[in-house]
């Protein structure tokens, strides 16, 4: 399979028409002004459709509440979803109250599922992980960033920004307040960047390593790299969601002084 070609080229035939439509609609990417590769868009859409189908299948199993009281025996689709959602909810309750955890669970859960499925898809030979592109990861990171600030302001009013001025908020500490404000502003700006770049860098480097090993010796040598790839995929999902939970939890927390 030559470079830049994935199974989507074989499934959908020539995707040039889609790329032309995409280019008419958007032009070049906002970051770096490079051509938008159609592979990532198709891969992301495929992951979204796959997830919807899987979720609908799992949903039908719990449609009848009385019959679905007992969990399934073994590792079925429904028990997989239940495991992940329960894990996410338990971790979220560590950083925020139960009401807030239940409220933000759709966002964090969607991010977790999309990132995990995209990452794992990249390990299959012939596929490219949709999250190895900065556009995908930065989109999710920006959504989390906007969520933290909008809900922080909703929860605390405009006094949400009072924490950015530091511990001493009197008139005689004005230089200190300005300095701490600059530091907090930049650190808040660096959060979505770091979330996006961390995920993108890990997936890009991991995919490149696996591809290089497979091209060198395709028989047994890529196996340890694939195992490490699985570990990296799962850990990166967990790190993204954990950091998102911490940021949201810190934004909506009610501290008792």
């Amino acid at each position, binding site marked *: 399979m030559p470079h830049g070609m994935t199974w989507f080229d074989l499934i959908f035939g020539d995707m040039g028409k889609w790329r032309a439509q995409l280019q008419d609609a958007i032009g070049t990417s906002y970051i770096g002004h490079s051509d938008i590769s159609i592979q990532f868009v198709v891969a992301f859409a495929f992951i979204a459709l796959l997830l919807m189908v899987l979720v609908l299948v799992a949903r039908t199993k719990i449609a009848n509440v009385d019959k679905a009281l007992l969990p399934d025996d073994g590792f079925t689709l429904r028990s997989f979803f239940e495991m992940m959602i329960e894990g996410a909810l338990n971790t979220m309750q560590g950083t925020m109250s139960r009401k807030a955890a239940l409220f933000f669970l759709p966002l964090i859960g969607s991010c977790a599922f999309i990132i995990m499925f995209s990452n794992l898809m990249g390990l299959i030979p012939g596929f490219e992980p949709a999250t190895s592109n900065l556009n995908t990861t930065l989109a999710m990171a920006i959504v989390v960033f906007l969520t933290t600030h909008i809900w922080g302001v909703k929860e605390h009013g405009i006094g949400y920004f009072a924490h950015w001025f530091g511990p001493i908020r009197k008139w005689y500490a004005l230089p200190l307040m300005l300095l701490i404000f600059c530091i907090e502003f930049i650190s808040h700006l660096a959060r979505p960047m770091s979330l996006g770049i961390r995920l993108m860098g890990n997936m890009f*480097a991991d995919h490149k390593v696996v591809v290089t090993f497979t091209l060198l010796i395709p028989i047994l040598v890529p196996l340890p790299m694939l195992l490490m790839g699985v570990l990296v995929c799962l*850990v990166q999902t967990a*790190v993204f969601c954990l950091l998102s939970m911490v940021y949201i939890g810190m934004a909506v927390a009610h501290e008792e002084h």
Partner: protein
Amino acid sequence: MQIRKVLTFLSVTLLTLIAASTAFAQEAAAAEDGGGDIGWKALAAGLAIGLAAFGGSLGQGRAAGAALEGIARNPNASDKIFTPMILGLALIESLVIYALIIAIMVKP
């Protein structure tokens, strides 16, 4: 005394590399002129990822060592130690990934 020897060795190595880079520049200028600083760019990319991997591995070694020591003291707490250890390792590794991105962007 040991740390002084290590530091001396490292600084001598670094100075040798920097002194040798002038040879790369001359070679690059003779080889091709398109982007006459292709040697510098290659050196920058290699140094970026090399130093980042060095520092990152030291940090991750300390984090994993502390986690292992905690598990050795109290094996029952291994589940509670595992999650923060993985989180810490991923955060340290993210700095190495930033250097990798810069190295890929600098690549001639």
